[in-house]
C-alpha cells in the first residue's frame, strides 16, 4: 500500500542535541515538503524538494536542514536543538495534491 511514513512520532530531547526526523514515501513522488505546525496554528512550509539533490527553503525561516539523496527519503536535521524548536513537524509528498504523514511531535527541554 502506497503511503508516507514519519519517525519518530514523538521525541523529547535536551537542548543542544542533534536530531534527525525521518520521512519516507512509497508513492514514487518527486515532490516532497516539510511543514511546521504549532498547536492550534497554521501549517508553515519550511523546506521542499522537487527531486533528488534538489532542496529549497520555504516561507518560514527554519534552522533545520534537509537532504534528498533518494526519491523516497527526505530527512530533516536540527544540528543543535533548542526549546524554540518545540513543535509538530509534518512531511508531505505529492505531484499536485499533497499527502501528509502522521507528523513528529518534537519537545526540546
Amino acid at each position, binding site marked *: 500500500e502506497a503511503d508516507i511514513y514519519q519517525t519518530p512520532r514523538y521525541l523529547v530531547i535536551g537542548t543542544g542535541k542533534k536530531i534527525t526526523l525521518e520521512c519516507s514515501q512509497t508513492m514514487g513522488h518527486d515532490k516532497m515538503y516539510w511543514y511546521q505546525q504549532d498547536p492550534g496554528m*497554521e501549517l508553515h512550509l519550511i523546506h521542499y524538494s522537487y527531486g533528488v539533490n534538489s532542496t529549497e527553503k520555504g516561507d518560514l525561516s527554519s534552522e533545520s536542514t534537509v537532504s534528498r539523496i533518494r526519491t523516497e527519503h527526505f530527512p530533516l536535521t536540527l544540528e543543535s536543538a533548542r526549546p524554540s524548536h518545540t513543535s509538530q513537524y509534518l512531511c*508531505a509528498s505529492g505531484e*499536485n*495534491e*499533497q499527502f501528509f504523514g*502522521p507528523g513528529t511531535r518534537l519537545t526540546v527541554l
Partner: protein
Amino acid sequence: EDQVTQSPEALRLQEGESSSLNCSYTVSGLRGLFWYRQDPGKGPEFLFTLYSAGEEKEKERLKATLTKKESFLHITAPKPEDSATYLCAVQLNNAGNMLTFGGGTRLMVKP
C-alpha cells in the same frame, strides 16, 4: 499580499445540524484550492481539490464549492465523527506546487 482566511475559527453543531465553513482568499492567480481534514495529533487528510469557479465536489456528507473569492465546505447532517479541524489551502500559478494554508475551522459535533 496573498491571504487565506477561514471562518469561523470554531463551530459547534448538534448531530444532524447542517452548516457551512468558509475559506476566503485574496491571491494573485489561483491555480487550485484544497480542503483537508486534520484530527488532533495527526497529519492533514486530503479531501478535495477545486480548480475553477462554479466547480463542486462531494464526498459522503461533505460538499465543497468554489467562487472567484471564496470556497465553502458544506456539511450535511453531520455526525460526531465529523469533528475535526478543516483546513483550506491555495496553490498559486507562480508558486510551483506549494500550498498556503488558512488557519482552519475547528468543528465539534455533539451527539
